[in-house]
């Protein structure tokens, strides 16, 4: 049903429509509204046959989900930021055990310095965890991706992370056609586990594997993600046929090919910032610039072929990403570079929106205006003066104090800048 609804509530209702049997929750901003809503729905009896558990940590949340999933229940949890890092050991364990848990990550920065606002550092830190990672562009897609996630997870016997931008999506109210239980029932079959804890069919699950088979076990994890590359488009097509709207997929090109010509410049990004980028691209297309957008919906598995064929023939790719690997630079860009191997494409990385800094149309226009002179790695709207002052202090030696505190002192009282 179409309704004006907060992103978190839409996601909670979509999850509830999937008939989860065990939901475990530990609160962390900006994920809280999702689990609060699920708590209310389950307590009110609107999620039949579901146990809602308030646990003592995110590590416990993922561990409870592991136990529940291994026992044959459809399990769900949600987290963000520090919470995702706190559960990391169990995150890897869930994928290693092949448990089709679905988890929402309400993307948020990682401290120190502590910061509750949005970027992709949390989910990106788990790109090697063996989970599928799907990024939502809108709240509609965030809600729909959860239904898709259960279908993918259970067919592949792998866990799926649905990544949605914290606050920007989780706390935004907009119109969403929330998937309803009847619709979901007709599309998502009941969970039929590949292996289950069953007293009548005793199996040892999670036993030790030595060097004789470990490589093969890990290879199979990779092979199953490669299978997911085939499955994701099929499942998303099926979703579109059943629900009447597009969601997910591997990549989503926007205005890359117009008038039979491939764009000169393509901006690549993940998540909600795609909306802003598309607005900017529309404006620049109006001015006659040859520019398009490629949204990456599935970051794990990484759709090498789809990315390559979408970008083959463009002159320049600008990756706008909300996280980076300290000491080298762009994460999405590094992955992209592998996909574009041997293609003559200029690749530029722009790290943007860290810790909730707004990515404005004005900044993006200014950035794209400089498209011919961009450094390989840039930080959007970086306050160079502020950084240089701290670098000078540090170079002077001695007890210079904490960088974060020094910068805040230099800035004076925190103010919002007009966009």
């Amino acid at each position, binding site marked *: 049903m179409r309704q004006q609804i907060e992103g978190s509530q839409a996601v909670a209702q979509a999850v509830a429509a999937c008939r989860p049997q065990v939901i475990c929750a530990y609160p962390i901003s900006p994920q809280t509204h999702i689990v609060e809503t699920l708590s209310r729905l389950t307590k009110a009896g609107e999620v039949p046959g579901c146990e809602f558990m308030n646990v003592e940590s995110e590590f*416990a949340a993922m561990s409870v*989900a592991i*136990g529940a999933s291994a026992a044959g229940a459809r399990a769900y949890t949600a987290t963000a930021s520090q919470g995702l890092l706190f559960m990391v050991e169990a995150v890897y364990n869930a994928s290693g055990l092949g448990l089709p848990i679905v988890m929402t990550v309400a993307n948020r920065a990682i401290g120190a310095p502590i910061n509750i606002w949005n970027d992709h550092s949390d989910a990106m830190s788990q790109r090697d965890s063996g989970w599928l990672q799907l990024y939502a562009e809108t709240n509609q897609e965030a809600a729909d991706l959860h239904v898709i996630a259960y279908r993918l997870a259970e067919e592949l016997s792998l866990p799926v992370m649905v990544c949605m931008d914290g606050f920007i999506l989780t706390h935004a109210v907009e119109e969403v056609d929330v998937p309803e239980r009847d619709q979901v029932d007709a599309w998502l079959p009941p969970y039929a586990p590949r292996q289950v804890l069953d007293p009548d069919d005793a199996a040892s699950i999670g036993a030790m594997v030595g060097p004789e088979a470990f490589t093969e076990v890990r290879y199979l994890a990779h092979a199953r993600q490669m299978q997911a590359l085939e499955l994701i488009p099929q499942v998303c097509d099926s979703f579109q046929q059943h629900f009447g709207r597009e969601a997910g997929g591997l990549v989503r090109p926007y205005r890359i090919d117009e008038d039979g010509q491939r764009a000169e410049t393509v901006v690549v990004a993940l998540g909600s910032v795609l909306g802003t980028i598309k607005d900017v691209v529309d404006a620049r297309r109006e001015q006659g610039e040859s520019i398009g957008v490629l949204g990456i919906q599935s970051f794990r598995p990484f759709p090498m072929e789809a990315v390559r064929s979408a970008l083959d023939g463009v002159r320049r790719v600008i990756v706008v990403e909300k996280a980076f690997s300290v000491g080298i630079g762009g994460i999405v860009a590094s992955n992209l570079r592998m996909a574009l191997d041997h293609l003559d494409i200029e690749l530029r990385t722009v790290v943007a929106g860290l810790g909730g800094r707004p990515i404005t149309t004005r900044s993006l226009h200014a950035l794209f205006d400089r498209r011919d002179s961009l450094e390989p790695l840039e930080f959007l709207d970086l306050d160079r003066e502020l950084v240089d002052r701290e670098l000078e202090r540090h170079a002077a030696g001695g007890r210079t104090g904490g960088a974060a505190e020094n910068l805040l002192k230099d800035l004076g009282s925190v103010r919002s800048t007009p966009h």
Partner: protein
Amino acid sequence: MTQTHESAAHDHLKFYQVGSFAIGNRLLPLEVRSVQADPERNNAITSGHRACQGCGEALGARYAVDAAFRAAQGKLVAVNATGCLEVFSTPYPETSWRIAWLHSLFGNAPAVASGVAAAYKAMGRDDIRVLGQGGDGGTVDIGFGALSGMFERNDDVLYVCYDNEGYMNTGVQRSGATPPAARTMTTQAVGEAPGNPFGMGKDVPRIAMAHEIPYVATATVADLHDLEAKVTRAMEFRGARYIHVLVPCPLGWGSSSHDTIKVARAATQSGLFPVFEAERGDVTAVSRIRKRVPVEDYLRLQKRFAHLFTPERDEEVLAKLQARADRNIARYGLLGPDGDIEEGIAARRDELEGEGAQ
């Protein structure tokens, strides 16, 4: 806490075999014989595993799991923390487990067990019972948060800790359950205060009681009939239950593999390891000491305490360890009303001092 607890459920059974308190099953009526004595037992941990000779944990787990299996009428699943029990029982493709068994991580077994219990509850399978288990490292230290969470939510899980007082699987390092003065590879017998410092460590059975969960008990492999009885009793409750079993580790403790039972018995009979049951936070029964021994009788059997006796006796530390045992005896009323026990210990002490003089 008072000193007038009821005796443990089966304390009326007294076995007097020469030189031991071993339970003579053949003398018992069928209905009170041990689960292990039943040829139809499940053999949850079957033979061929890789535990060390004399492993207390393998013994304790075998009795505990089979008793739980019988109480659950076969509808039992186990969740195991990483550790010796997990490693020695399951190098793929071999497994010793003849029950549905899940291993996830070192520090999350109680939470995983909670998840399993929640799943069965959601699916309406209240016939399936959940057993969580781990060593003291997985329970007392790294899994403690998960354990406390499982307790406070009163999740329907029986958790059994097999306490061998250290990280034995990784090569004998100190845990929060390592007793004072014990030598481990991270509390070595060197320096001014050799071994594990005094004033550290935690008493998890008492912490479990503070959660006011339905049932808490301690047990040792010296009295396997008692261990079975407690597991069986625990299975009569729903909600969070905890059994803490002392399991000597010949490798880590430096005891002879044939002395595992003897060492465990000396732990109880000295008072160093109190054996009791508690319901909803109150002690309901204690296993009284039948033949009290000084802590020395326990310590001397283990090389991890050798520095207390050679090159010379460390009277100060021995007195402090004896004081710990005495405190347990007073706290739990382990001696009971029999005055003659004191005479026995006095005689034994004289004997030991005589040996020391030689």
